[in-house]
Structures are given as structure tokens and as C-alpha cells.
């Protein structure tokens, strides 16, 4: 656990970069320090491993004041990744990843094993990459090796300063996803600096929003979006915060569970009757227990009149996997012009049905929670 207590940074010229902030980062949590440039987020992060000396206040690492520790020992217990990566070009990927283990005098075998494990974790084939030099890697691969290096000696805490800042948006998105998956496994306590609200919402368990050296709001991303504390926060998260919150929510939260289904060999007459009774124009077709096969709509049923479901159904169907964000599901619905989206698990078993109406009412709720349907318009 990291605890900041009234931490201040005043530079010799009188500039107050950090004006006495207090908050706690729980073990295993990813805490994003967010804010516009000059807000003190990087300074705050660097005071945790004492790259920047603290002027006033205390930072406790698991209860110990970080100024009571040897600064190099302290840093070796914290992974450190920066936007510029700073891989050492004269060292191989192996040597780069083993930087901290080398400082800690691990044996060669231990270092080799660790480097291989970390490359695997990063989705890079150790046999292919371990002997390469940084110049032989692509931007995304360098970024991965940089993260692997910061995990080198398996530190309980990681400090990351815009670690995905210098790469193209597509690769960045992928690296973020990969890193979240990794974090799910390794459960480090992470301090993650960014100025990108979308990254903060996506990555953070908690977000600390800073402005001119002060902590403005410290809360979970969903709360930051739904209940911004003041105008600065509202402006910073942007007018599209409702849409942003869709990125945080999963289809699982919005879908109807166990929707009405029909089977391929059912006859159309009975299906038509179900549709009339239920007042629906759309039914999902499943087979082999609960495997998604396709869907069938009322017009086709009525046009065909007789026969089996198999003759009138649409087999090629869009579906969202569980865990997909509502934003992605909505994109699919808009692109494919469908109002219903079946939700399946990894094995194509039907889990539920997401409808456009459900989505709409959910968006409405988010607005209401944040104080009325018409948020104040700021000039």
C-alpha cells in the first residue's frame, strides 16, 4: 500500500508543483494520476521513488516512510517504465529485462528464466527475441520490452509514466488490453501517469485527477464520469462522458438473461404464434443445447407461412462475447443496423440478449444519476 500524506513539492525558485496532497493507493490496485500537463502528476509519481525529493509531508510504502529507505534499494523494489522507454541500445533484450535482477546480483540462470517468463507474459516468443537488440524491434515490441524490464525483479509496486504514450493509437489500444490482462494475473500496486482521460478510464481502478498541484477528485472511473465534483472535472472528462461510461460497462450488465429461443426444426406456425403472443419481431435460434445458430424475424416467418425455422432463419449473425464493453457492442449495432445483439460466451453458448432499448434506458440512467437529464452547459 502506498500512502501519501500532505505531500508538497516546492522548487528552489518558489514554484509549488504539488501543493500538499493526501491519498492512499491500495495493494493490487492500478491508480491513475490524471491531469493536464503541469498539474504535478509526474512530480507526484517521482516523489514516490524519490527521483524528485519531497519538500514536505510523507510517503509511506507499506507503512515505512520512503525517506527512511536507501534510495537505490527503494527504486529496485519498484518497477519503473517511462514514455520514452529508455531501453539500453547496447544491451540485448535479455540484458535489458535483467537490469534490476543484475543490480540485485541474481544468478545467470535466474535472470535467464525471468527474462523468458516475462517475454512470454508479454506475448513475445523468447527464442525469437531474447538475443535481439532494441534497434531490431518495432515500436510496440520495444514498449513491451520496456514494461517487461520494469517487471524484471517482480517488484510489488510499479510506477509507469505514460508507458503507452509514444505509440500509434491502434498499438496503444492493444497494449492497454494486454497490460490489463497481465495486471489481472500479477495484481501489482501500480501508479500510472497519463493525461489521456480515455486511458485513465480504461486502465484505472481509481483515478486521481490533479490540477495545478492539487488533488481535485479521487474516485473510481465510473464515479468520475457519473458524478464529477466540479466544473473542472466535468470539463476535463468531456461532454461525452456518458459515451465514455459505456466503455466501462460490459454487455453482461445490460443484457437480458435467458431470452426466448427457438430451435431449427421447430415449425414456423408455432414460432409465429410465439412472436404474436410475446409481441416480438425477433427470436434467437439455438441448437445443440444452447449454441447460437442465428435468428429469425417476424416478416420472414409470415412470408414463408409454412415449413421449419431452418428455412426462414438468418444464419450469419452478429454476436458480442461476454465481457465486451457496451461501447463496442453499440458500435456493432450501429454499423450492422441491428437493434438486437445476442451475447455469447467463448464457446458460442448463448448467454443473453442486448437490445437497443435496454441500452437507451441505461444511458438515461447515467444521466439521471449525474443530476438531471440536462447537465449544465458550460460556456
Amino acid at each position, binding site marked *: 500500500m502506498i500512502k501519501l500524506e500532505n505531500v508538497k513539492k516546492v522548487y528552489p525558485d518558489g514554484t509549488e508543483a504539488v501543493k500538499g496532497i493526501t491519498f492512499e493507493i491500495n495493494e493490487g490496485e492500478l491508480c491513475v494520476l490524471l491531469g493536464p500537463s503541469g498539474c504535478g502528476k509526474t512530480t507526484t509519481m517521482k516523489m514516490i*521513488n524519490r*527521483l524528485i525529493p519531497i519538500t514536505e509531508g510523507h510517503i509511506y510504502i507499506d507503512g515505512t516512510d520512503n525517506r527512511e529507505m536507501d*534510495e*537505490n*534499494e*527503494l*527504486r*529496485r523494489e519498484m518497477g*519503473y517504465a*517511462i514514455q*520514452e*522507454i*529508455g*531501453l*539500453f*541500445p*547496447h*544491451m*540485448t533484450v535479455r540484458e535489458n529485462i535483467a*537490469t*534490476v535482477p543484475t*543490480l540485485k546480483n541474481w544468478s545467470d540462470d535466474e535472470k535467464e528464466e525471468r527474462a523468458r517468463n516475462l517475454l512470454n507474459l508479454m506475448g513475445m516468443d523468447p527464442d525469437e527475441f531474447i538475443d535481439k*537488440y*532494441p*534497434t531490431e524491434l518495432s515500436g510496440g515490441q520495444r514498449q513491451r520490452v520496456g514494461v517487461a*524490464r*520494469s517487471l*524484471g525483479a517482480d517488484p510489488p509496486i510499479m*510506477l509507469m509514466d505514460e508507458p503507452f504514450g509514444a505509440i500509434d493509437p491502434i498499438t496503444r489500444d492493444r497494449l492497454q488490453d494486454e497490460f490489463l490482462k497481465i495486471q489481472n494475473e500479477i495484481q501489482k500496486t501500480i501508479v500510472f501517469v497519463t493525461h489521456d482521460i480515455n486511458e485513465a478510464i480504461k486502465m484505472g481502478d481509481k483515478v486521481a485527477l490533479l490540477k495545478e498541484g492539487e488533488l481535485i477528485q479521487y474516485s473510481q472511473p465510473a464515479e468520475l464520469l457519473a458524478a464529477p465534483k466540479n466544473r473542472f472535472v466535468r470539463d476535463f472528462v468531456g461532454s461525452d462522458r456518458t459515451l465514455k461510461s459505456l466503455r466501462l460497462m460490459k454487455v453482461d450488465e445490460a443484457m437480458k438473461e435467458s431470452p426466448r429461443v427457438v430451435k431449427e426444426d421447430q415449425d414456423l406456425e408455432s414460432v409465429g404464434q410465439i412472436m404474436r403472443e410475446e409481441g416480438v419481431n425477433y427470436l434467437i435460434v439455438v441448437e445443440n443445447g444452447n449454441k447460437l445458430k442465428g435468428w429469425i424475424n417476424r416478416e420472414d416467418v409470415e412470408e414463408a407461412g409454412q415449413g421449419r425455422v431452418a428455412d426462414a432463419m438468418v444464419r450469419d449473425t452478429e454476436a458480442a462475447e461476454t465481457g465486451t464493453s457496451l461501447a463496442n457492442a453499440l458500435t456493432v449495432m450501429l454499423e450492422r443496423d441491428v437493434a438486437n445483439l445476442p451475447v455469447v460466451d467463448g464457446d458460442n453458448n448463448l448467454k443473453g440478449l442486448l437490445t437497443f432499448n435496454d441500452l437507451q434506458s441505461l444511458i438515461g440512467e447515467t444521466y439521471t444519476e449525474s443530476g438531471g437529464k440536462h447537465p449544465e452547459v458550460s460556456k
Partner: protein
Amino acid sequence: MEVWQYINSHWVTIGSWTMDHLWLILVSNSFAVFIGVSLGIFISGKGREEVADTVLYLAGIMMTIPSLALFGLLMPLLSALNLPSLGFLPAVIALILYGQLPILRNTYTAIREVDPAMIEAGRGMGMTSRQILLKIKLPLAVPVIMAGLRNAVVINIGIATIAVFIGARGLGVPIFRGLRTSRTDMIITGAVFVSVLALLVDGLLALAERKFTPEGLKK
């Protein structure tokens, strides 16, 4: 033709002049590298920018002093210190001084220009200043320092011929004897050997530079 004859009949002597010349270069440049690299590292340290400017300025001035004048200046200085003012010692001292600028400047520049992101990463991972110097800055600076050394050696192979004026032995001997006695064959022999020597040593150092350049920095 005459040159060929001269070489043919004096190759033992020419060989020993060449060896003397090489020895002079080897001794003086060994010291020059040691002093230049150490001083270069020292002045590249944080907060020493003004010291660095002064040192580099002085080393620059040193290069502008004509070699003959420098030899002349060293003589009274050394005799005041009760050291031999003629021969090998003043020659070595002069050559060390001439070798400073390229080695010093290259060391300084190379270390100062190491990407700050790497130093930041090193510090952030808990490297001491010493580890950052030895594991990051110096290995990255090696190619540039080697280039400075090559520069110094080639300059010094030329200047060492003039050291014959203060009694040092080397390939300057046939050149100046030739000048005094109007023996073109001796002058040409000396000049050709100096040039060939410079090219050979430079070539050897180029190989060494390649060998010492860290693998990841080679294109």
C-alpha cells in the same frame, strides 16, 4: 630511384627510427587516453558545465600553439624542475598535450549526449551514478571516444617528426638530416614512412573501434 636505393641500403636504420616513432606514439597516447578520458568523464559531470568550458577552451588553445614553440617552451620548464629537457620526456609531454583536445572533447560530448531517457530509466530502476556511468554512459560513448583517439594518434604521428628538434628519435631524423644536407631521398623516405605509418595505425585503430563498439550499436 634514389629513394629506393636509400631505403634498400638503410632499412635497418629506418626500421629502428620507425620503432622509435611508434614507441613515442604508444607511450604518449596511452597517457593521453588515460588523462583525456578521465578528465572528459570528470567535466561531463552534473554542475560542472563551467569547468568543462574552461578545460575545453584550454585544450583548444593548446592545439593552436605551434609544435616547435611548445617544444621550446617545455625546455626551460623541465630544466627548472630538474628533469631532462631534451629527448624522449619533453616529446612525450608535448604529444600528450596535443592529444588532449580530440580525446577530451569526444569523451565529453559523447557522455553528455547519451539519451536522457536512458539515464532516467537507469536511475528509476535504482542504478547508482557509478553504475550509470560504467554500464550506460561509457559503453555508449566508446565509439565516439575511439574516433577521438584515432584523431589524436594520426595528429601525433605527424607532430612526432618535429620532436627530433629536441633530441627525440624517430622518423623525423631522416627528414631533418635530409633538409640540412639537401638529400631529397632521405626527406621523401621519412615522409613516406610517416604517412604509411599513420595510415596503418589508423587502420588498426579502426578495427579496434569496431571491436569495442557494443554489438547493439553497430549498423
